[in-house]
């Protein structure tokens, strides 16, 4: 077999053909994780691979790198400049890995060896492939750290991975990946664990790295917005197979495969707040027990009999290729003018009374929560304190959803924990339904719990795995001594309310998919007919196609039951979709509060502007025209805050100000005041700015 093609200039840089990966011996037999993936990459090109968890997108890239466990059976062909890589011994592949093909992994904390300094780890990468003495290699590592934007690179090179923040660690990973000037760079969910602000920084860095090395990039992600922003071509994976492929613009504008249409329709968008999401019903199939026919058939709204018999091949369409029997019929997401995914009918908001007329469900006034810093093991003494929440005030009116947003570490969770405890805060006051929690006795406090219920982030760990679903939902009723007969009826009613069936009451949480489990969590929270639901990242653990269904449910319930929500989420698109009002937090303070439309359309605080501009929009045209406002660096150490305005050290506006104005920021802590009607913002130089295209 000849490994090299006739003319090297004619062969693609990386060519993957008919790639298949089988993991033998799963619970249900062999697991065909990848079932035929093919793509070509040219130098400098960016390919986005999109799919939900379990779609095989990461496995296919690990197969290219030869990093799968030994027992995995890999078939097909992977050629780098015409040279076959599959089936080579580890020793030969090792010479290619890190040199010709480099990889950036998802979680940079666990992906760096904890016991070596980052400088040593980068130097090691260099020395594996280049004949370089230890000294020059370390020197080169410092240069690389500097080029990826690590301040004080020479000193930081001697630090260990745990001494870096998540964003900085990802920069280290990228420095390591570009150390040997690779031809192909594979980034596996490189920004998934990061805040949007840091995600924007890392994506920009990846783009710079690509320009520096002219490496072809494979970007694996579940985020359609990220792909829209940086990829030239996109490959959509479902159940181990590529189901649609083509240039990003046309595929996003006119997808031909119903799965792609569903995926695009189920993502909440910052730029289209009113649009109803179209969730995909069901959940992805178990690849080790695939039925004959199209793997998407069971979830496809336009399924034909043939779809259940013959699995469609990836066939060329006008712009790319799609694996669907009806690809030719689909025009603009519709067949004969009827949308493939018809938008579901949700309860519409009734003509509401003005918000000031409605009673407040929750009032939070000047609440502060401090954590002491102590020193000494035997004689513990307080040496200072950190305020996780510092003088936060907001209220939620009946039937209103307040979205609390901000980076991790901004104090969102501490705030809702203070509210949920129903205890008097150390400073400030919390009033629920006009009752100050400080004056409550034991019994009254329990009674008040009826009115505030919570839905947690991870539905698997927040439901007791040993209780049947019926008992889980029943438990709050039992603790409030609701009669037995009433309870049974109520459980069935609640299950129906969240889109499940009363028969499900006898099953256990493990029998349900992620989306269904979150519905169970919501049903439990609704059991006592609360007025306020506290939702802590309720959809962040779910895949997009599932997330849409839960969001629709929440939207529907809010109107039908007149619920108020306190909604915490790091995904601003989700907040945009569901919230009526938004409060933006930074380092324990509220920096901007107002109606959702105002905050998203004409934010005045530079932090809000930066947050919003960092959120990618799944629209290649709009996304590429946007101007990014990047915040610099990471959150400062809360024990050592900058003087004056806390945001000063990272503020994009601050650097543009006159020295006199800068002095004001450095000396005077800005108060939260209304600079424009209806929008309070804590900035001396607040001014409106549109950052989300309309």
């Amino acid at each position, binding site marked *: 077999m000849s490994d090299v093609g006739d003319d090297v200039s004619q062969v693609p840089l990386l060519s993957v053909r008919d790639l298949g990966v089988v993991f033998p011996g799963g619970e249900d037999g062999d697991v065909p994780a990848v079932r035929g993936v093919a793509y070509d990459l040219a130098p400098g090109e960016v390919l986005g691979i999109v799919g939900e968890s379990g779609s095989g997108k990461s496995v296919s890239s*690990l197969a290219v790198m030869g990093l799968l466990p030994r027992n995995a059976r890999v078939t097909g062909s992977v050629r780098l400049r015409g040279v076959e890589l599959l089936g080579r011994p580890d020793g030969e592949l090792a010479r290619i*890995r890190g040199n010709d093909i480099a990889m950036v992994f998802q979680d940079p904390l666990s992906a760096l060896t904890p*016991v070596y300094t980052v400088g040593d780890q980068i130097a090691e990468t260099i020395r594996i492939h280049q004949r370089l003495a230890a000294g020059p290699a370390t020197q080169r590592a410092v240069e690389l750290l500097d080029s990826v934007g690590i301040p004080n690179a020479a000193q930081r090179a001697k630090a260990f991975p745990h001494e870096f923040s998540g964003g900085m660690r990802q920069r280290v990973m990228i420095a390591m990946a570009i150390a040997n000037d690779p031809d192909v760079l594979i980034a596996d969910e490189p920004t998934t664990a990061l805040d949007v602000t840091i995600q924007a920084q890392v994506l920009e860095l990846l783009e710079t790295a690509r320009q520096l090395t002219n490496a072809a990039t494979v970007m694996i992600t579940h985020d359609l917005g990220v792909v829209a922003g940086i990829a030239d071509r996109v490959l959509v994976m479902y159940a181990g197979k590529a189901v649609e492929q083509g240039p990003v613009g046309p595929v996003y504008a006119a997808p031909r495969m119903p799965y792609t249409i569903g995926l695009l329709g189920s993502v909440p968008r910052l730029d289209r707040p009113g649009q109803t999401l179209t969730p995909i019903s069901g959940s992805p199939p178990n690849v080790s027990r695939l039925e004959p026919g199209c793997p998407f058939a069971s979830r496809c709204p336009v399924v034909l009999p043939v779809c259940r018999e013959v699995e469609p091949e990836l066939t060329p369409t006008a712009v790319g290729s799609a694996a669907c029997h009806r690809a030719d019929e689909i025009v603009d997401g519709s067949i004969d003018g009827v949308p493939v995914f018809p938008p579901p009918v949700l309860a519409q908001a009734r003509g509401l009374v003005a918000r000031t007329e409605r009673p407040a469900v929750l009032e939070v006034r000047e609440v502060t929560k401090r954590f002491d810093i102590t020193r000494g093991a035997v004689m513990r003494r307080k040496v200072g304190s950190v305020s996780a929440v510092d003088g936060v005030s907001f209220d939620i009116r009946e039937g209103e959803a307040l979205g609390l947003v901000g980076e991790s570490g901004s104090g969102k969770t501490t705030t809702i924990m203070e509210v949920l405890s129903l205890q008097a805060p150390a400073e400030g006051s919390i009033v629920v339904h006009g009752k100050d929690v400080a004056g409550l006795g034991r019994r009254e406090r329990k009674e008040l719990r009826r009115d505030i219920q919570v839905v947690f982030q991870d539905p698997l760990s927040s439901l007791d795995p040993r209780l049947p679903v019926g008992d889980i939902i029943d438990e709050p009723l039992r603790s409030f001594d609701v009669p037995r007969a009433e309870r049974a009826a109520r459980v069935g009613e609640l299950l129906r309310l969240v889109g499940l069936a009363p028969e499900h009451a006898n099953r256990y949480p493990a029998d349900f998919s992620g989306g269904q489990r979150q519905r169970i969590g919501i049903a439990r929270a609704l059991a006592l007919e609360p007025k306020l639901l506290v939702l802590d990242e309720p959809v962040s653990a779910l895949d997009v196609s599932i997330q849409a269904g839960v969001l629709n449910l929440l939207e529907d319930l809010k109107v039908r039951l007149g619920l108020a929500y306190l909604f915490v989420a790091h995904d601003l698109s989700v907040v945009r979709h569901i919230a009526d009002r938004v409060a933006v937090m930074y380092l324990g303070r509220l920096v901007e509060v107002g109606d959702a439309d105002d905050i998203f359309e004409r934010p005045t605080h530079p932090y809000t502007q930066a947050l919003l501009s960092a959120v990618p929009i799944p629209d290649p045209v709009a996304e590429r025209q946007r101007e990014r406002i990047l915040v610099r660096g990471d959150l400062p150490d809360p024990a050592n805050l900058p003087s004056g305005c806390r945001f000063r050290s990272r503020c994009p506006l601050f650097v543009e100000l006159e020295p006199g104005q800068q002095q004001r920021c450095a000396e005077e802590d800005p108060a939260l005041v209304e600079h424009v009607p209806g929008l309070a913002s804590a900035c001396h130089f607040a001014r409106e700015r549109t950052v989300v295209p309309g």
Partner: protein
Amino acid sequence: MGRFLLKRLANYVVLVVVATTLAYIVASLALNPRSTYEGRNPPPPAAVVEQQLTAYGVNDKDPLLGRYADWIGGVVLHGDFGQTVRGQDINDQLGSRALVSLRLLVLGSIIGAVVGVLAGVVSAIKKYKVTDRAITAYSFFFIATPVFFTAVLLKFGALSVNDAVGSTVLYYTGYETPNLQAGFWGHVADQVGHLILPTLSIALGQIAYFSRYQRNAMLDVMNSDFLRTAEAKGLTRRKALYKHGLRTALIPMATLLAYSFGTLAVGATFTEKIFGWHGMGEWLVDSITSQDINVVATVTLFTAVFILISGFLADVIYAVLDPRVRV
């Protein structure tokens, strides 16, 4: 870091004092040195017995705290551990017995640790293969078998080896042949011959024990992301496993290794008894049967100090291996 270690050291010293004090008091209350004298034939005059017991500091008619103060004062001020119930100097025996024990333990522990760690690593890498199963079977056998059984088995094995060779290659009593006239190398060969079986009886168990722990630690690391990164950088699987994997998997082992060495100090009693080595473990058991308070307290002190050193060593090794605890 230095401050942290100093603090730990201070803690350990307190523990040593507590352990020794308790041991002395308990031994004084439980043991009856008087019986050694009263049982003699002909019985010595009562006044002589009293005088002797008081002289050795073990007379139960003297106040306990006073006796303890005398003994601990002697230890701290003069390094004098007092006398045995038969009037011999404890100091004379302590040195030689400690050396005998250490010779046995240091070698056994080092072999146990090194081979155990390697066996664990191999076992993890060859998970569920024949090698892994063999090592696992070996481990379970020796973990389940008490050391006196292993030692007796080894004795039988040695007998048949000696029979097969036709001369005594493996010795199973004592740590040297008394009155041997064989020159320097002859002595070395003789001592090695004596050392093999007891060392094996300790090492076999330790290997079994450590290999299980190391196997688990290694398996944890083998699924870790950083190992995949190391391979993605261009290291071969094998190199990544040793340079990044084993290095990290050794961290939890440091504590285990150090402490097990410490607890062995007296724990090798069976081995010493069976092979006729006059070490610390044997001494402890003998002194209890001979109602010897001072020796019990001395051996306890020795053990406590040994564990102190091991604990301190564990802290230092841990800090050296894991940058995350260096503060």
